[in-house]
């Protein structure tokens, strides 16, 4: 009886430890990201993506609906192409939806914001969002401001 108790206690301990490790792996790490894991792909072409990185959030009205899967430069048009995985639940995104790159807070990370349009037809796997607004690049902004100032002075 005592031996069985020992085995039971050690068994429970090992199960607890492995369970904790599993929770760490699934919930406390990138393995468990569910939004956008299995979903459909949308593409968006931007002039400039700023600091956007893969795995950044894709939001609609501030709610995460997917994540950025991949970013590359189109070798012909030199646009940045952002591949997004959108959750299956959000499969009725209008065709004339526009995409913008915003920053969450002053120091926050950048994310893609989708602004839904009003069309009756919906975006499907592999479609491209063409109405986009590039990320604000602070240096460019300052540069334009300085140029404007200089031009105004003349």
């Amino acid at each position, binding site marked *: 009886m005592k*031996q069985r108790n*020992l*085995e039971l*206690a*050690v068994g*429970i*301990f*090992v199960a*607890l*430890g*492995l369970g*904790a*490790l599993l*929770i*760490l*792996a699934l*919930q*406390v*790490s*990138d*393995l*468990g*990201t569910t939004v956008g894991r299995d979903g459909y792909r949308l593409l968006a072409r931007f002039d400039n993506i700023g600091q956007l990185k893969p*795995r950044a*959030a894709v939001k609609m009205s501030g709610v*995460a609906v997917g*994540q950025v899967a991949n970013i590359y430069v189109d070798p012909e048009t030199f646009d940045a192409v952002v591949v997004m995985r959108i959750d299956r639940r959000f499969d009725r995104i209008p065709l004339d939806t526009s995409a913008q790159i915003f920053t969450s*807070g*002053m*120091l*926050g990370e950048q994310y893609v914001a989708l602004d839904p349009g009003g069309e009756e037809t919906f975006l499907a796997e592999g479609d491209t969002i063409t109405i986009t607004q590039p990320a604000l690049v602070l240096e460019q902004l300052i540069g334009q401001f300085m140029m404007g100032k200089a031009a105004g002075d003349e």
Partner: protein
Amino acid sequence: MIETLRDLGRSGIGAFESLGRSALLFFYTWRGMGEVLTRPRLVLQQVYATGVLSLVIISVSGLFVGMVLGLQGYNTLVGFGAEEQLGVVVALSLVRELGPVVSALLFAGRAGSALTAEIGLMKATEQLAAMEMMAVDPLHRVVAPRLLGGIIAVPLLASIFNTVGVWGGWFVGVGLLGVDDGSYWAHIETTVSLRHDVANGLIKSMVFGVAVTWIAVFEGYDTVPTSEGISRSTTRTVVHASLAILALDFLLTALMFD
């Protein structure tokens, strides 16, 4: 003058001698691991004594460490309006550093000292000598299962510590201070990487497990077989193991997170 020099030299030579003895003990013990695998019950008993019995102290400490991290992290982050990142602060500090280190330190105090005292008393009461008389190698019969049991127990304890700690931080941050539940977990999921953070933390705690149990069994086996000697060895186990954990932690961190 000459006396002091002589003492200094003696203690220096003594330190190297015990380092050599501990290396030999480690080597001989591992050579006997095959024999241990034929008697898994011995290891089971040690996992019980060092792991299961440390469970309470590990989970309670994990909870409080997580709660403190939640509180401190919140107070700092709220100044930047970045309290949503609280989960990342809690999870990364636990998984990378505090989980492996604190659980190994607690293990050294809770289980390492017990290992030393147990083996030391076996030596003082000549049980080890009696085993040798019966042609049973005490390194294989007594030391090896304890070493293996400790090495198994420490990473599991560290994982429990981490998980409980993240929930402790969640309890303070989300439950008491009003951080958004979704962003607590979402930021953790997007920032903490399985390979870089969780796996490296696990490797750390494995290394600590080997170091702590090795020091504990060596100090026990190498003790001066008197009551005073055992008490000194037990103290040395806790001191040396703690120093070893902290020094190894620096080394491993430098290697892993560049």
